[in-house]
């Protein structure tokens, strides 16, 4: 009798989210836990011989943070490189994307040909990062077109080694990341702005607010959740920066490993020696950094706008 007290629809909710959790556990959680596990083993290949896996405790982490003769610690240097490359690319990326998103969604400006511009700014993202870096590699090589222009117009009497100087390599990498991702960010932010009630903008107008005031007092606070999401995904993507510098510097991170990112470091351990121990240890460090930075960004960016 008590059976038919009520119909529970909740179970359907759970059933519908099962596929996500199955995929998440199989392809994200399990590999992540195995990575943690691997980090505590000596496990690599020497030629065709397999060494290990032997349990070594925290040895891999200690090795990772042992300074070399000159006193620099590889892991920290590559983390620094990654952050510099990311900041150089991400700050203009978010700034430009925000500006474009506001322009495109403004009913006052009412820009014509929006679809066309949206397509064009998204275009670089469609090109594979590897192909994009190859293009830049060719453009800026010592005998490439850029150097030919410089030489023939007499701005320099020797070819400029763009790929051999720290500043230019870092700027090129950031420029490429910027070009590839600002379109994507623009579209995300546009969606965010379009989600804001138009009445608010009109009300602000009627109250006599100027564009700047509208931007800082209406758009930005209401956009905060999307902006936090954008910054966090951009940051995680930035920490995992690999393809562009890898291809541009042929995996060397030249000059003097100043464009060598953390994932390139990880990749060096995985290639040839299949050193799962060291690569696992780097992954764990990377995970801790990503998790704590995301937390910090989330807390600081979302706090001021909370009611």
């Amino acid at each position: 009798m008590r059976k038919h007290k009520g119909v529970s629809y909740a179970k359907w909710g759970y059933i519908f989210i099962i596929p996500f959790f199955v995929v998440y556990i199989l392809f994200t959680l399990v590999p992540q836990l195995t990575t943690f596990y691997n980090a505590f083993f000596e496990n690599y290949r020497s030629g065709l011989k397999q060494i290990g896996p032997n349990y070594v405790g925290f040895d891999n982490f200690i090795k990772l943070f042992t300074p070399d003769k000159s006193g620099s610690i590889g892991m920290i240097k590559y983390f620094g490189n990654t952050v510099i490359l990311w900041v150089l690319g991400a700050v203009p990326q978010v700034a430009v994307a925000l500006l474009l998103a506001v322009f495109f969604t403004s009913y006052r400006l009412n820009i014509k040909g929006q679809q066309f511009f949206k397509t064009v700014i998204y275009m670089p993202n469609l090109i594979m990062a590897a192909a994009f870096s190859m293009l830049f590699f060719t453009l800026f090589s010592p005998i490439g077109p850029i150097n030919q222009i410089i030489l023939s117009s007499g701005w320099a009497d020797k070819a400029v080694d763009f790929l051999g100087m720290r500043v230019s390599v870092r700027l090129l990498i950031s420029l490429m990341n910027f070009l590839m991702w600002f379109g994507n960010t623009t579209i995300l932010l546009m969606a965010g702005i379009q989600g804001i009630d138009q009445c608010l903008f009109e009300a602000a107008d009627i109250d006599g607010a100027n564009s700047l005031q509208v931007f800082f007092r209406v758009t930005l606070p209401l956009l905060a959740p999307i902006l936090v999401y954008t910054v966090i995904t951009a940051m995680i993507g930035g920490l995992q920066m690999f393809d562009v510098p890898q291809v541009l510097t042929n995996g060397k991170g030249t000059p003097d490993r100043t464009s060598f990112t953390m994932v390139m470091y990880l990749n060096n351990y995985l290639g040839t020696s299949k050193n799962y121990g060291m690569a696992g240890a780097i992954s764990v460090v990377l995970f801790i950094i990503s998790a704590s930075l995301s937390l910090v960004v989330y807390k600081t960016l979302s706090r001021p706008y909370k009611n």
Partner: protein
Amino acid sequence: MKKVLALVLAAIMVFAVASVAMAEGGKTLKFYAWNEEFKGFFEKYYTLPEGVTVEWVIVPSDNGAYQDKLDTDLLNGEQVDMFLAEADYILKYVDSDYTQDITAAGVTDFSNAYEYTVKAASDANGVVKGVSFQCCPSALIYRRSIAKDVLGTDDPAEVQAKLDSWEKFNAVAAEAKAKGYYMTASFAETYRPFSNNCTSAWVDENNNLVFDAQIEAWADQTDEFIKNEYTLTAGIWDDEKTAQMFADGKTMCFFGPAWYFNFCMGNAQDPEKGCSGDWAICEGPAAHFWGGTWLLMPAGTENADIVADIMNTFINNEEVCSKLVSEEKQFSNNKAVNAKFAADESYGSEFLGGQNDIAVFAAMTDNIKWENHTIYDQLLNEGLQNNLQEYFKGNVDKETAMANFFKYVAEKYPDIVLPE
């Protein structure tokens, strides 16, 4: 019950395999290589038995990618019926249980093959596990017009007399510079002539990294060359170097075997800008070889008979070896065939202005040594050059460059012991 189930499953599998084989009309062999070179020769000059097809697995060798793929598949017991290997890492496979004795499979006649090519494919006990279809003595390739200007002659014998030691080579570099030429076009151009004559291997028996006197000599010479602008800071394969091989190039000397000047130099890449005929070769300051492709027989193959026949064809079949020379511009691994071309006065290379390159190479082969190799050679050679290039470019001091090289070694080969 379990037995019945196993039998049924086995029967299904046999049936599946058989039906696939029948559908394709026979079996498929899997060959591994890092480029299309040998595939081309193979398809042209070798006729497979009825019903047999070959599937090529081709992965570029850069940064050890080919070795990674091959190693993974060999370790996982995938089907590999034959694979190609280069001098820099052949030892890894030859000195392992993943390759097998080819004499047992029917390749027994090495009388026409050059000794070093056989030695390279033999393990520590002298068991031969593969053959090379080419022999790669590497020559000094010089621009005739520049040699005339700098040395006053372009005759190979006279040029050789003026460049037969490193002292003379270095002295001529200064003369070339004075006339506005570069001696070589890459900081690593002379790496092979030095490194092939090392008296010790990259690592010793305790796995310590060792710097041979020859490697030091190369680094010192290059230091001089860069400082005095006798050479460029470009890498061996960089476009900047290739540009020097065209008609408006200013570089006198390159080093390389037959495959290098026929397929890799500027003329091959852009014949219009090249200067075919304005080149000649001689032995140069130090005998050496560069590259070479060996065919190895994996232990796991079930088609040893076909693979052995392929190997025999490419070293002992006179007709095929002759075609490799005349049609494909290779220096074959068959002494009799090479001798025939060397003695043929009508034979000559158009690129070398009619010079008989086979005769020059044949005379050089006696001086080639195969010794002091390790399984690590490819990446250590690459890594040292790449890291020192930064020093030669002036981006870092030598100490930092070496420290970066050691970091690279530690990442690639955790078992190599680095100097303190």
